[in-house]
């Protein structure tokens, strides 16, 4: 069972509510869907549109804007259903990624992982002045080099194992693991400096 997605709801007006998720469920570009059938390419948007009373979904990265058909229907009724639908959609997304993953070779994994690095991993580590370069994929193991604030950082391994590897395994299930080939002693500006017991 995948890790549940945390959802923060922010009503925009009587008919629109913005739902911010703790991880991306769609490509960064904006996509608008008005029926479950038309949202087949986006399992999360599709699941939300299956909620009775929802007429439109706009999705981009980790933000979903939901439009309801009837302004009189309170968000307090729809919100829990949307939260549930988001997680149902995320499960469908991962199941579909797993099916694709089983048949992926290293080149295909490289392409998929490169996209995750571009859209999710590197924007996240950039917050700490870091960057992670995708070097290669060998037997489904992702070879990376950490740069900037990540190089020599005392928590680099935690970020790599608990953040990067976990995200990659979830989003690209064919990934077996991550190997760090960084020379951490050459880092000149680590975000967290080692230096106590």
């Amino acid at each position, binding site marked *: *069972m995948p890790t549940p997605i945390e959802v923060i709801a922010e009503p925009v007006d009587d008919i629109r509510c913005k739902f911010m998720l703790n991880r991306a469920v769609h490509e960064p570009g904006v996509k608008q869907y008005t029926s479950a059938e038309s949202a087949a390419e986006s399992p999360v948007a599709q699941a939300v549109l299956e909620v009775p009373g929802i007429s439109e979904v706009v999705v981009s990265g980790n933000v979903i804007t939901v439009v309801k058909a009837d302004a009189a229907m309170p968000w307090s009724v729809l919100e829990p259903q949307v939260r549930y639908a988001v997680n149902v959609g995320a499960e469908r997304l991962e199941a579909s990624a797993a099916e694709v993953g089983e048949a992926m070779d290293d080149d295909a994994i490289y392409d998929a992982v490169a996209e995750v690095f571009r859209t*999710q991993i590197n924007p996240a580590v950039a917050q*700490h002045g870091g960057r992670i370069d995708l070097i290669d994929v060998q037997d489904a193991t992702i070879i990376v080099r950490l740069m900037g604030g990540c190089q020599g950082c005392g928590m680099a391994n935690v970020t790599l194992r608990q953040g990067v590897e976990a995200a990659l395994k979830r989003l690209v299930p064919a990934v077996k693991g991550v190997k760090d080939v960084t020379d951490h002693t050459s880092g000149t500006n680590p975000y967290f*400096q*080692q230096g106590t*017991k």
Partner: protein
Amino acid sequence: MASGGDRARLLLLIPTTTYRAEAFVEAARELDVDLTVASEHDSTFSLAEPDKLLTLDFTDPRRAAEQVKVFARDYPLAAVFGVDDHTAVVAAHVSAELGLRHNPVAAVEAAGDKHRQRVLLQRHGIRVPKFRLLSFDSDVKQAGRQVTYPCVLKPVHLAASRGVIRVDDAVEFGQTVQRVRAITDRAGPAAAAWATQGMIAEDYVPGPEFALEGWIEGGELDVLALFDKPDPLEGPYFAETLYVAPSRFPDAVQVELVACAQSAARAVGLETGPVHVELRYNDEGPWIIELAARPIGGKCGQVLRFGADGSVTLEQLLLGRALGRFEATPKRPPGAVAVMMIPVPVAGTLDRVIGTAAARAVPHVTDVIVTVHRGQELVPLPEESRYAGFILARGETPEVVERAVREANEMIEFVVGSALEDAAGSAR
């Protein structure tokens, strides 16, 4: 349960400044547990991976325990492990809140507080140097008349010999108290509410020093290693440099040291968890210098291996024992190990480190780890407590490994400032 099925989940409490994040995280992976890492600062992936990364205020263990209690409703925990003095206290609070096996809160807090620890040890008749607590507003002149010289000043809440200075007479005493105060001010007040503020003035105890690494189970000490510290630690500063195991002292001395450490752990109230004890030995017998409810610091733990083939790391053993997976400690493989903690040699901006490849090539040296980086401002002991690096060795005898790390250490040079000054000079 939100994830993980029947796999045990371990919560590892790791401060962001530790040397040991990688060793513990990799150990947890080897043990095949679901791992959650908690630190005092947010990870960039905390929101995306809420079951794997937590942020806790380590200075407020009660609040941290409440936070973990909420977390554990979705992700039940089998064990909690803190890697240093402060996180060990947090782990004790969390374990008490969740009913998990761990040392009692009071025992871990006492172990993490140099003054409370000494009070307990003295009360139980354990041999400790005669000590007195100096608050930051103590009358220095009066205190200087009341101590016996030589004495040693130690900030209550700083670790790794930071601010620890030997004083030989009353004139030095006043100046050194001011210096220790300045070091303490720079370090900031004791961040944890449970810690006593101030400094200890205690008698200097002559004699060789030892470090004992152990695990306490049901109050009983299981010795993982007893290290000799062959470099004399006579002051004025007390940089830890060389650890060698097994001890070359007579069996009778080792038995006394272990018995003393066992009594000390019992006196403090430790029941389940790691213990690190610093002892001295002289004509009067063993003395407790420090006791901590945490494992050995720095990268030193990397020299300790367990099992016939040495495949179990110290961190695997500690986490495994916290999870109840080892009923007893597997024996260490035959032979000897040594670790050299390289003190920061001189103050300045690090330009480069020379000689590490040659040092690595010294027979029996298994690794040379540099833990400072180019451009970093280096400050030697006692003002700071950072080590410049670690040299690890493994061989047939204590003599062989001691010689190896000393030889390797001679080859390494930390070049400070020169290139930057040259660059500045040519720009003029």
